[in-house]
């Protein structure tokens, strides 16, 4: 992942949810190896913005583009998205879950499922059904998914939810490694994730009015 001219740019974005204007006129740019932290009160549109970038939510106005990546693929295909929902199946085992996502997303030169589990300190739980995991362990598993398939852009919505201090530290290292490899992170968070040189984009409720 050494595409150093990788660049995520949004211009004049607007978001309307349920007839309510959430934000408009939003522009930003993030380059390779950099992170953008979204802050702001509930309802300011942090999650909506992330979903718009991921292509999960319609962009009513303006545009968002990822340049310098794989020209064949859209943003969605070059991104990892971690939302509020973990997207895990209770009856699949931890290792099965990662194997599936690795096969589905296309592995490339990414870490093996076992290495990903190691990184998230889940290795002893590999053959347990997801149903037995605690909320924090589930979150760690959904973060481990990011390691089994290479994606230059990470879109993280409150990634540290349900994580204890040790796991937050692991997440920090994990994100730092991604940035060091030339990736981009856009994260919505209440917590200081200690990202080096991260730009902050503060969304407020007043932006709409």
């Amino acid at each position, binding site marked *: 992942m050494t595409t150093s001219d990788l660049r995520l740019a949004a211009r004049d974005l607007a978001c309307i949810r349920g007839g309510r204007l959430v934000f408009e006129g939003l522009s930003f740019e993030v380059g390779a190896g950099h992170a953008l932290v979204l802050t702001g009160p509930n309802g300011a549109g942090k999650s909506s913005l992330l979903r718009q970038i991921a292509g*999960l939510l*319609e962009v009513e106005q303006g545009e968002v583009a990822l340049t310098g990546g794989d020209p064949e693929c859209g943003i969605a295909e070059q991104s990892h998205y971690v939302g509020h929902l973990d*997207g895990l199946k209770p*009856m699949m085992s931890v290792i099965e879950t990662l194997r599936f996502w690795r096969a589905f*997303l296309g592995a490339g030169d990414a870490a093996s499922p076992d290495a990903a589990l190691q990184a998230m300190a889940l290795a002893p739980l590999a053959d347990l059904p997801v149903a037995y995991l605690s909320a924090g362990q589930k979150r760690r598993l959904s973060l481990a998914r990011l390691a089994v398939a290479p994606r230059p852009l990470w879109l993280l919505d409150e990634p540290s939810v349900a994580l204890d201090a040790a796991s937050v530290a692991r997440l920090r290292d994990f994100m730092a490694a991604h940035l060091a490899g030339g990736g981009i992170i856009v994260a919505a968070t209440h917590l200081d994730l200690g990202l080096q040189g991260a730009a902050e984009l503060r969304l407020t409720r007043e932006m709409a009015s």
Partner: protein
Amino acid sequence: MRRAFLALVARDIRLAAGIGGGGGMAVFFFLTVVAIVPLGVGPDRPVLELLAPGMLWVGLLLASLLTLDRMFQADVEDGSFDLLSMGPLPLELVAVAKSLAHWVVTGLPLVIAAPVLGILLNLPPETMPWLMLAMLVGTPALSFIGAVGAALTVGVRRGGLLASLLVLPFYVPVLIFGVGAVEAAAVGFEGQAARQALLFLGAITLAAIAIGPLGAAAALRAILR
């Protein structure tokens, strides 16, 4: 892309076969629905023989409707669908994979269970191969047409009922030609009429496989974005 497709099909089959997946449930439902018919209309053998093809097909339709609503809903509820839709597979192929998995876990077992039910309904043994053949040809259409209904009702509370209402009218041609094939085989004519009905059934299935995923993907895009 082929790898992603196969991985998704395998996952869906595995999930349906496991706890709470409802894989075996459709067959069980089919069994009960058909077995309850003689209790309603009486155990008169000629009457049952007359009703058998129709009842078997109606039971099959109802049983395959039963599991339809979970096709996309389960993934949408737990957030996996967001991740699936961001993968390398176009939504159309995701719909194909899910329809295919649905057919393997419901359609196929129903076809295999049908002859046993045919015995219960006094279906003449000569028509049994025709019944199975017709169902084998016709059931994929149910899954692929059903995918559109499942996609349209994604995110709807009690969507299963609504999906059934939406989809049933589209099942009518399958029902007509499916029953037609079995009845024609029962009458005889060296299977000429039955063969014709089977061809129609095959055409419907091919059309459903071609159009269903497009419709399902369009519906998913319209509703979820």
